[in-house]
């Protein structure tokens, strides 16, 4: 089947023109379909909604333009949670970091664990999105935006934690290489400096990725906003850059997306590797290990994909998007999560068994300390590996929304505790036995960390009201480049790949 034929066929099905049903009638194929072929059914379920483009636009832009009362109440509640965190933060800044529970040998505590967690969360979006873009996985299309936005926002939250954590916030700009009379220059030999560069560059990259992906949809939203006389037209006009959807624009745009996908795919793993090097570059037993780079990256992707699933299910329920984000998507993401869970478990085991077997006293001490916190480990084991791998192996579980919601939350709880177990116990049991102590977070730390979660949700809630949350252009493209082929009694959906 030639490309042109295929384009014509799918277009004739009424997608591009907005009027449909004249050439290839979908219902006719439906009657041909063997009800047993579940895969085919999943694809068909996908296609239904996209046939009427105008309706599709209105449907997917609805969360953006129409706001319910409960939304405002919810945002207000988030604002209150953020306010208490801000209060704690301001108090801590003016009084001193002693407000946090960290002390002599445990110089990094829950703040840094949370920082690692949020950086990890940011690895879902762009990495998943660019892998799926590059492999041209068709099912990716509706979820790209939501995932990319997650990257940008979790990085924005993560970026706050080093600032909350430093002793002299008002001098934190010393890390920026500004040539000035101060005659200060950052030390590029420090892993923190690499981290600073990597996080900022990743933030720039993922924001760009998000924005470039948003561009055609901004144009659609702009047209709608102008037609409705909505106030959003003012910024949408500016941000859409005068996008018209000319073929030249599309062609250049696709190429640019490809570049960005490749570059982001190179940046993202390096970022979490560098975050892991904040630990691995030290000579602290337990941290100083070569496995940390890949281990952190896999852990990041793991918690990231779990968060994407949680988020997808939430969006689906809250904004009535169950015909855009289908069970099929959650199922596919679940398979991806299963693979990553297995890889992560492998790393977890590798890290454990090398320490356990060599039984070096300084490393063993850390493990013993962790061993006393068995419930934490149980949580990591269950959430991180055993339970997840078992549950995700069943298709029925993967397509059960409440189950997946609960499981992905459990995964992220497990991953949070795992980060905590990486940062804290190792500092509690350092080389010098005279300085061994334990650490518990204080109310200040808990308050700020809770507020960070509220801040993330808040950013997301604001984003949904200002920008289109479904990747409309990609979905439309998906319909254009795919068509149906009959194979005996089956109907198979095929997709053109360039």
């Amino acid at each position, binding site marked *: 089947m030639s490309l042109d034929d295929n384009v014509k066929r799918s277009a004739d099905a009424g997608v591009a023109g907005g009027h449909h049903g004249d050439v290839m009638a979908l219902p006719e194929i439906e009657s041909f379909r063997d009800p047993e072929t579940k895969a085919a059914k999943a694809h068909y379920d996908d296609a239904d909604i996209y046939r009427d483009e105008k309706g599709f636009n209105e449907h997917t832009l609805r969360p953006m333009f129409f706001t319910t009362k409960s939304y405002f109440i919810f945002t207000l509640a988030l604002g209150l949670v953020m306010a208490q965190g801000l209060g704690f933060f301001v108090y801590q800044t003016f009084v001193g970091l002693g407000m946090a529970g960290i002390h002599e040998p445990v110089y990094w505590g829950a703040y840094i664990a949370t920082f690692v967690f949020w950086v990890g969360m940011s690895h879902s979006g762009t990495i998943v999105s660019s892998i799926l873009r590059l492999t041209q996985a068709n099912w990716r299309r509706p979820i790209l935006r939501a995932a990319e936005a997650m990257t940008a926002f979790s990085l924005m939250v993560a970026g706050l934690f080093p600032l909350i954590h430093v002793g002299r916030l008002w001098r934190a700009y010393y890390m920026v290489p500004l040539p000035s009379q101060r005659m200060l220059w950052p*030390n590029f*030999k420090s892993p923190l400096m690499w981290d600073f560069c990597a996080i900022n560059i990743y933030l*720039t990259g993922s924001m760009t990725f998000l924005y470039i992906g948003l561009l055609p949809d901004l144009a659609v939203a702009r047209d709608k906003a102008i037609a409705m006389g909505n106030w959003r037209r003012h910024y949408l006009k500016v941000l859409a850059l005068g996008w018209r959807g000319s*073929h030249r624009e599309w062609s250049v745009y696709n190429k640019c997306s490809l570049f960005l996908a490749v570059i982001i795919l190179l940046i993202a793993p390096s970022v979490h590797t560098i975050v892991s090097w904040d630990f691995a570059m030290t000579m602290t037993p337990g941290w100083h290990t070569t496995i940390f780079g890949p281990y952190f990256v896999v852990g990041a992707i793991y918690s990231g994909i779990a968060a994407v699933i949680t988020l997808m299910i939430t969006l689906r329920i809250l904004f009535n998007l169950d015909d855009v984000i289908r069970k099929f998507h959650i199922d596919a993401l679940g398979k991806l999560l299963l693979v990553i869970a297995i890889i992560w478990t492998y790393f977890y085991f590798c890290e454990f068994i090398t320490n356990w077997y060599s039984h070096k006293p300084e490393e063993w001490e850390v493990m013993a300390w962790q061993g006393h916190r068995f419930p934490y480990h149980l949580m990591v084991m269950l959430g991180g590996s055993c339970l997840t791998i078992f549950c995700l192996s069943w298709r029925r579980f993967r397509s059960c929304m409440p189950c997946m919601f609960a499981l992905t939350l459990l995964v992220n709880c497990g991953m949070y505790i795992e980060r905590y177990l990486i940062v804290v116990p190792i500092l509690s049991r350092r080389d010098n036995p005279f300085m061994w102590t334990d650490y518990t977070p204080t109310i200040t730390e808990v308050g700020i960390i809770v507020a960070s979660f509220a801040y993330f949700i808040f950013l997301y809630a604001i984003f949904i009201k200002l920008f289109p949350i479904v990747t409309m252009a990609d979905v439309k493209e998906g319909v254009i480049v795919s068509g149906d082929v009959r194979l005996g009694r089956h109907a198979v959906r095929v997709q053109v790949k360039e």
Partner: protein
Amino acid sequence: MSDHYTVLGLYRKVETITKAGDPIREAFGVKDGDIEVLSSAAYPDGALLDDKELLHQVESRQFLFPFLMGFVGFGAGVILAGGTGYIMNLIVGGKSPFTYAPTGVITYEFTLLFGVIGSVLSLLYYAGLPNWTDRAYDPEVADGALGLLVKVYSKEDQEKAAKIMEDYGAYKIKKGVNDF
């Protein structure tokens, strides 16, 4: 070339718009860059209009932007991490003033940062964005209509082009001046 005139014809079907492109080009000898198709989603190159050659030229150059910017970033990274460390010599941890591994890490990051910037610049440069002026456009394009946009240089040609478009099935015609 002081003034130009544009005609934007809106179509509903891929079939019709693909038929309308060639007659217009033949009638006025329109150059590659003077005819455009507006759509709400990306069609494969050449699916709607025979402009593969022009786009091919653009595409073959577009990669130069991120590529060359990547080189700039590479240089920036080496100078920033290695160079300044070497000039402003301060010994830490018994390490030499110029260190390969940390310079490599920073250089890698900066190469990619400039690559990102280069990609965006390539988009802006080759797509002619941003352009906030009132250009020939119709909001129906966002809802799935396909627009055929042509640029001509006289009023009569504009009328003629509009006629041809109508003959080939455009359901809506928009005429404009200097807004290609």
